[in-house]
């Protein structure tokens, strides 16, 4: 009986989802002329600063770790908002590009095609990037400490190599890269 109820609920939910898609579609069509007005400018330079590993490393080296984690979480949250906004713009541009690529003017159709594909790629990347940043928010600084660890390791292997060269100038030594 439980399985029957689950299947009926699943069927009703899928029906509702399709009706919702149909409703959303009709409202989107009626306002297609207004779509360009829905594009919000997003400052890409500010976004670059927020996701720059060098910036994160600088903060890591200057701030107490608890303070760093708090600030890094805020920075990542802001970056997610920037990406969401860019993804929203991409969704609007997909719709505009869709209409443009049906144009009888070949240049407009070509530009529309390129716009649609670029915007879809952005939607895919933004989904992955938001997932990545959200995971990073759980333990901010993990990548920075890993970067520090890698740098420390590199420095250490360099020192081992130098020491070996100084001790036995005729031979070398191999240190595993991982």
């Amino acid at each position, binding site marked *: 009986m439980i399985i029957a109820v689950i299947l009926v609920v699943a069927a009703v939910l899928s029906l509702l989802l399709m009706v919702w898609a149909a409703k959303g579609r009709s409202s989107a069509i009626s306002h297609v002329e207004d779509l360009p007005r829905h594009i919000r400018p997003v400052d890409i330079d500010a976004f670059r600063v927020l996701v720059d590993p060098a910036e994160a490393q600088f903060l890591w080296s200057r701030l107490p770790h608890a303070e760093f984690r708090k600030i890094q979480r805020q920075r990542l949250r802001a970056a997610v908002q920037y990406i969401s906004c860019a993804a929203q713009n991409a969704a609007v541009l997909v719709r505009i590009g869709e209409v443009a690529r049906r144009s009888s003017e070949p240049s407009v159709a070509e530009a529309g095609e390129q716009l649609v594909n670029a915007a879809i790629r952005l939607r895919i990347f933004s989904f992955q990037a938001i997932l*990545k940043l959200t995971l990073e928010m759980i333990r901010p600084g993990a990548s920075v400490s890993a970067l520090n660890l890698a740098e420390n390791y590199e420095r250490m292997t360099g020192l081992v190599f130098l020491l070996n060269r100084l001790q036995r100038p005729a031979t070398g030594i191999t240190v595993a890269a991982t």
Partner: protein
Amino acid sequence: MTLRAFIWQYLLIVPHLLLLIVLVALLRRKVYRQFPVFFAFILGETVQSLVMIWLIESPSTKHAEYAIAYSAAFAVSTALRFGVVHEIFAHIFQNYSALDRFGTPLFRWLTVALLCGAFALAAWTGAYSDQLMSVVHLFDRTASILQCGLLVGLFLFSSQLGLSWRSHVFGIALGVGIIASASLAAAAIRSQTGVTYSVALNYLVMLVYHCSVLIWIFYLFAPERSYAPAALPRHDMETWNLELERLLKQ
């Protein structure tokens, strides 16, 4: 003629007559070239309905003959509906070069996952004493889970990416999706209750089928939007794509 008999006759005959309008629309708008399997499905449904109505109305038809004819028609119809779902997937993904590499894997893995779920439920066969009908309803439930799941997956995927569908493609998907949802609900109830609510469920499935035919007619005749932008808005999609790609590689 009682009201109930009238409704039964109406639901038995009218949706199939309306399928002729769908056929005309498919031919007039040349949609049959893009969706040959959907065209075959509508044609098959029309022919099947003629045979089934003749069998129902003929007094010499035996129950076993009707059951075999129903099962065969059902198998063909289900196979064609599955083909239509595949056709919708292929059409949506071919339409976007950025999605080319996603279409086949998404369809394949979604089908595998849904088949696993449907097979897991197959052990739970239900309350039918007639073996042929038991197999038919099990097949119906499995096919409905697959079709419903695939279409819901496609709707969610395209809404996540902000894809917009052309009217007739959306209409075909919506109609098939609604039929699959109703079939799934009916198959789930049937497998638990046997023939107890069979008549009510038959009415429900026929009513939903009628609605789907009307949806196909509406979307096949609906005009495409005519807004043509004079110039495309300025955008920095490529820069954003490079930045996000770099971020994902970090």
